[in-house]
């Protein structure tokens, strides 16, 4: 039987002279749900600039690795070698849906000949759900249906997940904007494209790579 554990873990044995880290509870609460932080998040500057090393040090002691990416975001992953952290699961179903969402979007933008990066990140008027290509063509709709995302409501649900994880922001006028952490999803597509595996060996190729090598732009992983 499982349930959400909402209590903050007991402080690791840090030096007593060190001042308590600000917003530690908030960061831990958000981290538990897979939050990615970028510009605009209240704790972003604490994490990214001021106290990154201190936070990274603190979390590493409970088996969580904080990552700082130079494209302007922070996120956390679980240290698989840590006994406690290895008991925490990762949300593979959500991850699969997000990867499918990203792959379809890229394919549609590439087919249209538009600048993929700018279309995703720099659209001044934002994106509208109804303008997304995911349910526009039969082939894409079928893929989305297979993943349980075949209706506008389900797609809207995925959009809310994107917002919850910090990949997007939904604005009051029902448009949404993509935030820097979305680069992580693009990185996954990029690696899958870069490896050029034969279709049958694709799985092996993916499994052999490590998260640290994920982005083309180097990411700054905190090391203890």
């Amino acid at each position: 039987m499982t349930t959400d554990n909402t209590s903050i873990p007991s402080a690791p044995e840090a030096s007593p002279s060190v001042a308590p880290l600000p917003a530690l509870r908030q960061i831990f609460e958000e981290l538990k749900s897979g939050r990615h932080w970028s510009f605009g998040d209240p704790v972003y500057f604490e994490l990214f600039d001021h106290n990154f090393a201190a936070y990274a040090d603190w979390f590493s002691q409970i088996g969580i690795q904080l990552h700082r990416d130079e494209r302007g975001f922070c996120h956390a992953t679980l240290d698989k070698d840590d006994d406690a952290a290895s008991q925490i699961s990762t949300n593979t179903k959500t991850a699969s849906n997000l990867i499918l969402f990203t792959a379809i979007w890229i394919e549609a933008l590439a087919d249209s000949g538009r600048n993929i990066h700018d279309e995703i990140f720099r659209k001044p008027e934002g994106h509208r759900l109804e303008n997304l290509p995911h349910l526009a063509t039969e082939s894409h709709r079928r893929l989305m249906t297979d993943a349980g995302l075949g209706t506008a409501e389900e797609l809207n649900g995925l959009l809310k997940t994107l917002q919850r994880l910090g990949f997007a922001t939904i604005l009051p006028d029902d448009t949404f904007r993509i935030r820097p952490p979305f680069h992580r999803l693009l990185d996954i597509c990029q690696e899958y494209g870069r490896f050029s595996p034969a279709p049958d060996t694709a799985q092996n190729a993916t499994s052999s790579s490590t998260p640290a090598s994920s982005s083309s732009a180097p990411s700054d992983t905190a090391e203890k």
Partner: protein
Amino acid sequence: MIVPLREAASFLCNHEWFVSRLWQHRDEAWTDADLLGFAENVSNENSPSPKHLVAELKKHRFIVERIEPSATWELAPAFQGWIEHLNMTARPVRSEVIDGFILALETALKEFSRAWPAPDSWASAREALQDIWQQLRKTIENLAATQLAITNEVSEIKTSRVSLSATERFRRINRLWKTYLLPMLDLLDTGKKFPALCDHIEQELALALSKHALPERRVAIRITDEIRTLRHSILDGFRAAHSEIRPLHERLRRESEWTQGAARILQHFTRERDFPQQLAARLAIPNFRLRTNLTDAVLKRCAAQWQNYQPNKIAAIDFGSTADMTRKRQAHQVFDRCIKLPPKRFPIPDFVAFLAKEFPDEDFYTLLRTLSLVLNDTRRVDSDFHLPRSEYNIGCGTLCLARVSVNLRKHSQHRPRNP
């Protein structure tokens, strides 16, 4: 046979539209039929016959026969070069060609170095100096053309976004980058082969001048001018092109990899209806559900939520009554056609999709019955369900179920079943 200039110019003047048409298709190999087709497309009632036009074209040697494929034609290289000159169209030159010029320059320089100190070799020194200047001029012209061609192509790639896919854009920019720009910079950059040779030429000229043994001062000045052009405008141009293309090359490479990756991911998902676990694990979104024990209070609270739960009634599928026998017979016929398929068609990985595709004229109930017959005939058919659940549009209805794969049991293949 020498072609009279007046005749050739007159042909071009009268049939400029025909030549323009050929120019548009200059990258193709034309058969006689193609040429006649071009001539017909642009001719009017006052024009000579297409056959005559093509014959004239050949007679004036505006087109020449290609080596291969045989019996095909192309614009004569000299004629094409002339039109390119008029259009200011630049063609990039590979670094190997420039290497050839450098080699010729080195030879000419050696000859000049040997000749100028000897008073009796004055004529040879003059000739070598002319040769240096010619080679240098050709090199610079080719470099300038390459630079212009690169700039033109980059501009075209930037402006023709809609017509080019991300992969094609990257292919074109990558070709410029790898085939022309980087090798050329490798030749031209400070301290590399070509600048070193230019330094050597300048030293030799200065030495000859200091000894009052420079045979042709005017040519020497031209040579130093050319070298200055090379150092400043050409090299700077290539460096600027490098700086301009580098981010574009990077971006297009990244977009191309995104596109290839996305295509592979979707291909995998289409085939397997799922992703490799490792792919999703790369995102590693934490899901903090720690193992723990639930208290009785928590369990009671959960139970209370479900206490008044009333499930929706399961809707029965109405197969009708009077028309049912007809549908039943049709279902058996469809079933028989399925199991009579050649063995190589089996296993069928997604049987419902197969039914929808192969029997588009059958109605929903018939196909549903067929599915039922297949699933129940365990004697002849092996069937298996695979997640995730999919939605199928068959007949006029939508069927929602896990994917069914179907295979024939070996002993029963090709045995029809009696309805």
